[in-house]
């Protein structure tokens, strides 16, 4: 029989305001095995933990139940406290009477009743707990960063600087990401390329960093400390070792009609191309869908003009398999498609553009060489209208429910830059709210209004109307004046919502990392573990976790790096002891369990067993504790009931069921 101590936490008033903790203490004392019960204001505090330790010593406790917040919050705290007092940490169970009880119920009697039942279930379970010993697993001292934008680059640099090897996998031909497409950055108006390219160069030159561009993660297996990853290096059709980056092939390529991804399709590029002048590596790729050689067999101009002989039409995709201890996801974002917002005439007029397209137009290397002009007729605009929250803050399934966070600031930036460079251009911004939390952000926005004379109108736009003369008519609300405005414009810029880069879904599936309804990766805890995925060994960097601007992205990239370094610095990891285990006497070696195991953790051995005095050799399932992750699929599949999961055994769960239904 166990000797169980029950500790009921008030959590200040979080629990005690709705659950009568004294009553819980009184009720659980009648439960089998319980020899001690007490309540305290904050069980997780130093003093609370001391109470647990004292009771363990004084009452010779063999098991502990803490009625408190979610085990996801403090299970580890209490297990460690028990261990310090000499108890096996796996003899501790938590009854979640906060998240699952006091916070969702109002009626005290009802909540107290439920808290008692939850405590009983935990007590029933502890009665069947057995001490468990975690095993050890090794750590591969190398990290993988998926995505080569500013988030990925920064994470990689920080990990590499700490002395660990890092590989970056980037799916486009160059690292640099969205930031390389930006012209200027807020709130200091630095040139984006000027601050980004040094980092790109540093990453490329770093001896600890290996960059796989034009490559994608294909398969992930393993677990924290020991991931095995297949990387597909897509065929570049150019030998990177021979290419000198002279650029002649791109100049001479006769097929120049492919839309330029880097310029958001506003102009075209050659079939053999580097996305932009500062690309790293400075090795072009052949876009086989656009290349005449691949399409018709005739051409071969690039091969002829390449002095270095680097063109290789026969190149094939290559799969590289690498081992990693930690994986950082930094897959970034894209702007949403605007097909659901045709009232803004994006698909109907070339002069209605997204903000990211405006970045390219404003950029000296962009499709208009940095001149602000209408894409329809090349004319210089005199009236520009910006529309905020296009596709953000929508709960009607057309757009995104969240605020994209960066739009208010970049619109202020655009407005300011335009007014600065072209004082003849009037700029009007239709906004719902101007959101500028951030250092020097509101001051920046106010400068746009006060110093640059940008006209901010509170109200959303209903429709953008094309006029026969080529101008645009913006029909919007002025809520402060209670008017409907018709504003003639030459160009309209849409602050388009951002969404996680769509490929993140597959990556999350491969990593078994959770993802929310908007395809943002979920953090292990929204406040306290914001850069970790709930999946151990997977870390989050940048917009893949939620909308953020460059400074925040860089900060989070550093944080993710520190977490990865913290993992890589360890030589061994403690493994979860809640693994599956076969009862030798019941196992008949049928192989059903091995078939459902996603980790290949189960093998079979010919083993001599002593079945009630009969000694014989039988084929028996053996679980590799280093590989088993403790999902329990095998326990249910097992036809003889031999396979069980330690820490979540059949008897334990049934005991909980019984306690709840009593």
């Amino acid at each position, binding site marked *: 029989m166990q000797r169980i101590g029950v500790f009921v936490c008030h959590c200040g008033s979080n629990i005690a305001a709705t659950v009568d903790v004294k009553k819980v203490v009184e009720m659980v004392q009648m439960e089998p095995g319980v020899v001690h019960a007490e309540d305290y204001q904050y069980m997780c505090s130093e003093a609370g933990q001391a109470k647990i330790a004292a009771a363990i010593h004084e009452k010779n406790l063999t098991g502990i139940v803490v009625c408190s917040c979610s085990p996801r919050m403090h299970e580890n705290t209490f297990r460690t406290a028990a261990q310090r007092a000499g108890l096996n940490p796996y003899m501790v169970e938590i009854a979640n009477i906060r998240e699952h009880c006091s916070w969702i119920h109002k009626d005290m009697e009802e909540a107290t009743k439920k808290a008692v039942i939850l405590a009983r279930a935990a007590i029933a379970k502890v009665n069947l707990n057995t001490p468990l010993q975690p095993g050890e697993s090794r750590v591969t001292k190398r990290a993988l960063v998926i995505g080569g934008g500013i988030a990925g680059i920064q994470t990689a640099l920080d990990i590499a600087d700490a002395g660990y090897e890092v590989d970056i996998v980037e799916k486009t031909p160059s690292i640099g990401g969205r930031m390389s497409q930006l012209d200027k950055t807020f709130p200091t108006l630095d040139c984006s390329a000027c601050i980004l390219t040094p980092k790109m160069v540093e990453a490329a030159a770093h001896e600890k960093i290996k960059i796989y561009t034009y490559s994608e993660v294909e398969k992930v297996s393993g677990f924290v400390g020991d991931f095995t990853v297949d990387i597909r290096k897509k065929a570049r059709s150019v030998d990177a070792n021979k290419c000198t980056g002279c650029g002649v092939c791109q100049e001479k390529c006769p097929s120049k009609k492919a839309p330029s991804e880097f310029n958001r399709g506003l102009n075209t590029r050659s079939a053999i191309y580097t996305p932009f002048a500062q690309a790293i590596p400075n090795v072009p790729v052949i876009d086989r869908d656009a290349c005449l050689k691949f399409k018709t067999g005739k051409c071969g101009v690039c091969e002829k003009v390449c002095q270095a002989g680097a063109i290789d039409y026969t190149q094939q995709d290559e799969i590289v398999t690498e081992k990693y201890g930690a994986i950082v996801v930094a897959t970034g974002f894209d702007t949403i498609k605007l097909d659901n917002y045709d009232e803004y005439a994006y698909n*109907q007029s070339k002069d209605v553009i997204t903000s990211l397209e405006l970045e390219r137009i404003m950029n000296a290397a962009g499709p208009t060489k940095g001149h602000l002009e209408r894409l329809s007729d090349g004319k210089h605009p005199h009236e520009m209208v910006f529309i905020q929250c296009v596709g953000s803050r929508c709960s009607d399934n057309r757009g995104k429910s969240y605020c994209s966070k960066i739009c208010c600031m970049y619109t202020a930036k655009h407005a300011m830059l335009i007014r600065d460079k072209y004082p003849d251009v009037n700029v009007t911004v239709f906004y719902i709210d101007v959101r500028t939390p951030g250092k020097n952000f509101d001051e920046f926005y106010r400068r746009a209004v006060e110093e640059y004379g940008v006209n901010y109108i509170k109200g959303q736009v209903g429709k953008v*109307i*094309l006029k*026969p003369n080529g101008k645009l008519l913006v029909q919007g609300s002025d809520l402060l004046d209670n008017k409907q405005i018709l504003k003639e414009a030459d160009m309209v810029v849409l602050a388009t919502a951002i969404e996680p880069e769509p490929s993140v879904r597959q990556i999350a599936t491969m990593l078994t990392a959770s993802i929310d309804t908007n395809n943002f990766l979920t953090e292990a805890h929204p406040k306290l573990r914001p850069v970790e995925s709930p999946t151990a060994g997977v870390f989050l960097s940048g917009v893949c976790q939620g909308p953020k601007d460059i400074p925040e992205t860089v900060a989070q990239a550093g944080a993710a790096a520190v977490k990865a370094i913290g993992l890589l610095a360890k030589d061994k990891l403690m493994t979860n002891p809640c693994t599956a285990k076969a009862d030798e006497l019941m196992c008949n070696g049928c192989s059903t369990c091995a078939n459902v195991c996603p980790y290949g953790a189960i093998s079979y051995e010919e083993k001599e067993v002593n079945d009630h005095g009969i000694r014989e050799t039988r084929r028996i399932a053996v679980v590799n504790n280093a590989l088993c992750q403790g999902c329990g699929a095998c326990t249910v599949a097992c036809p003889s009931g031999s396979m069980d999961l330690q820490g979540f055994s059949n008897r334990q769960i049934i005991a909980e069921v019984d306690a709840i239904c009593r």
Partner: protein
Amino acid sequence: MKYSYYPGCTLRTKAKDLDAYARASAKALGFELEEIENWQCCGGVYPLGTDEIATKLSSVRALNEAKEKGQDLVTLCSACHHVIKRVNNDMKNNEDIRTRANNYMQLEQPYAGETNVLHFLEVLRDKVGFDQLKEKVVNPLTGKKIGAYYGCLLLRPGKVLGFDNPENPTIIEDFIRAIGATPVVYPYRNECCGGYISLKEKEMAKNMCDKIKDSAAGFGAEMLITACPLCMYNLNKSSETELPVYYFTELLAEALGVKEDAE
């Protein structure tokens, strides 16, 4: 192919053309519109109130009759289409309305939105196919610049009607191309003409119609086509801008060479 057909009150009186041209064209295209028996007026306005049942029953009757025949229900008038499609949606998705309507109806089998409601244009697009239609055209209206006037009832709310992209529709433009003419896209083609208020608010209706016609004419349209008798009336009556308005079925019949059959 046979479809159940719901003409509606106006097509029996002031908009006989819309109906006659449609039937003649259907015949030429190889499908038949079988008028449902004893149809009743749809009411002209979809009752938005969640507590209105009686005003939805005439639509349910028509829908149920098509169901019993195992046919899709085809409509022509925009208002009828709007009302019947939305009532059908209620019957399919709103348990409360479904139960109450069925309690009134006392049908052998309760009606639960089984009938597929199609606008005549949808039949052309999804059943006949505009490519097929193009092949059947004998008098292509080559050179004619035509503006499509959609109005509001066919398109909105987009989620329920599922007719076309409510902010940038293409179905009538595709139709115009199929009969050999040139579509003129103009931004007011899905803006309301003010038909419902044209009885009393003459000035307001005039402003709205002028906007639509001026915009279409500005982009080079020589005529407008519509599927809605109310829009037709209002655009002609309320605006002084010279721009003829036709029913799309008239041009269809002309292109198919069956216009005389209808008259």
